[in-house]
């Protein structure tokens, strides 16, 4: 395939993915908007007013970056896992596997599609959050870099989950039993400074801590962890997950007999 043909194939996958989640927007774009609005109302306005300041900001301002990242993580992951597993389950993935499209183009198409949903949801949630809190982005490029890299990383995790999943139960196990606890314990609602030293140390093993704090630093300028280290870790995880995903596609593991 020439580079132009690869570009066409990439755009085709991307457009198909975007069309898919826009077609079912009540399932893909509306729920995070409703859920996050509830978070803002309950944790920010009702409970937050009693908590007071955290890290030098109102509680509402403190939780907003974490909630935005929570949306990005869950939506990027959910988009790729459901889309790719759906294609695998219904055998429509064969349309791509029989074509000359290289594995890295297929992966890039699916990941970019998922990222676009993650970013779109981030935009929706950020817009909603402005009705509840005043935000001034401190480091724009770092913020965008973290959110983009995080979206890519969790799209890749979703892809790996989809490849290994045998049924629809398998695609909900990781989000329910791994992703959600990690998000909730990743410092979305509290600062690690509030934890005893031991639990603060344990929390630092949670990759979501770096995602949330990296983004919080970009938006508010405060973080519980070293931001360069956080960015480096997210980048490293992305490279490892990307390489492994490509290996799965090229060898056809769980996709070809």
């Amino acid at each position, binding site marked *: 395939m*020439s580079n132009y043909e690869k570009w*066409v194939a990439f*755009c085709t996958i991307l457009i198909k993915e975007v069309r898919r989640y826009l077609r079912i927007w009540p399932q893909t774009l509306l729920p995070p908007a409703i859920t996050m609005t509830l978070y803002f109302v309950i944790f920010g306005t009702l409970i937050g007013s009693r908590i007071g300041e955290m890290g030098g900001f109102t509680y509402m301002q403190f939780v907003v970056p974490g909630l935005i990242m929570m949306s990005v993580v869950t939506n990027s992951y959910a988009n790729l896992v459901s889309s790719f597993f759906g294609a695998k389950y219904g055998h429509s993935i064969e349309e*791509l596997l029989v074509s000359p499209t290289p594995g890295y183009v297929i992966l890039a198409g699916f990941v970019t599609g998922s990222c676009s949903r993650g970013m779109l949801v981030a935009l929706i949630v950020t817009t909603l959050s402005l009705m509840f809190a005043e935000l001034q982005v401190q480091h724009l490029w770092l913020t965008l870099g973290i959110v983009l890299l995080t979206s890519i990383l969790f799209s890749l995790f979703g892809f790996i989950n989809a490849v290994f999943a045998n049924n629809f139960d398998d695609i909900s196990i990781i989000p329910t039993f791994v992703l959600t606890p990690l998000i909730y314990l990743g410092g979305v609602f509290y600062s690690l400074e509030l934890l005893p030293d031991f639990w603060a140390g344990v929390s630092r093993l949670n990759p979501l801590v770096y995602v949330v704090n990296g983004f919080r630093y970009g938006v508010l300028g405060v973080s519980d962890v070293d931001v360069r280290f956080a960015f480096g870790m997210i980048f490293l995880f992305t490279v490892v997950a990307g390489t492994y995903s490509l290996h799965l596609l090229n060898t056809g593991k769980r996709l070809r007999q």
Partner: protein
Amino acid sequence: MTTALAIKNLHKVYGNGVEALKGISLSVEEGDFYALLGPNGAGKSTVIGILFSLINKTAGSVEVFGIDIDKNFPQAKKALGIVPQEFNFNMFERVFDIVVTQGGYYGLPQKLARERAENYLKELGLWEKRDSQARELSGGMKRRLMIARSLVHQPRLLVLDEPTAGVDIEMRRTMWDFLRSINAAGTTIILTTHYLDEAETLCRNIAIIDEGRIIQHSGIREFLQQLRTEKFILDLRQELPADFSPGFPCEVVDQHTLEVMVDKDQGLNALFRAISAEGLEVASMRNKSNRLEEMFVTLLADSADERADE
């Protein structure tokens, strides 16, 4: 003449130890209409799966128009089109989008993909359904949609895995005409089917696979010449006499119908003479079963006997 497909000593052992292919070799010339036949589980779909990279081969080589799939599979894939046995498109997508998207996977610019999609959907009688979701189509329409999708990148070699399964007779004949026309235009076609009349009508060459081995690989005409006897059913205008004996092994089905077994060397003139001598008139005559079907069944029985002897 260019060889469209050359398979040499192809082996496939699945993870569970099942040896699906035991050293298959065959070649298909460019422009051919080729039948790949065999009973269920013979290995036909495994061969097709390997050809389209849905199944990894264990050993052997496959060349598509001289391109070794181990060396340049993407280039080989550009020359290949497949109509699989099972529906494998997203049922919630629009018919037109399914075909255009497939073109995109082969690097076709959007404008060209849309033009070709329109062309093939019109030819296959699906244009009116272009905005329908695939799940709203009938079984025959879904099969035609898969044919349109497989052709959008204009493959030189088209493989059809039971394309007319579950399709009504009229639609089958329309599909036959369409396949004949694209074959006449230069597309090499490999067809697997359980309808042996379909293979006999459409194909020029044939391979029969059984238990992972090729047991027959020849032209259909040469293959049918191996048929030693044929059974005919004759419908007679007059009642058959009780002691009727035309000098051929025969069976009286009813008073107006006779089933006769004719040896290849005997010819039919002697049979008609014997019938005329009795003052009987033949109203119509037909083969009891499809000739290819008879040969196919005989061959499989012989193959089973050989395996039993081994």
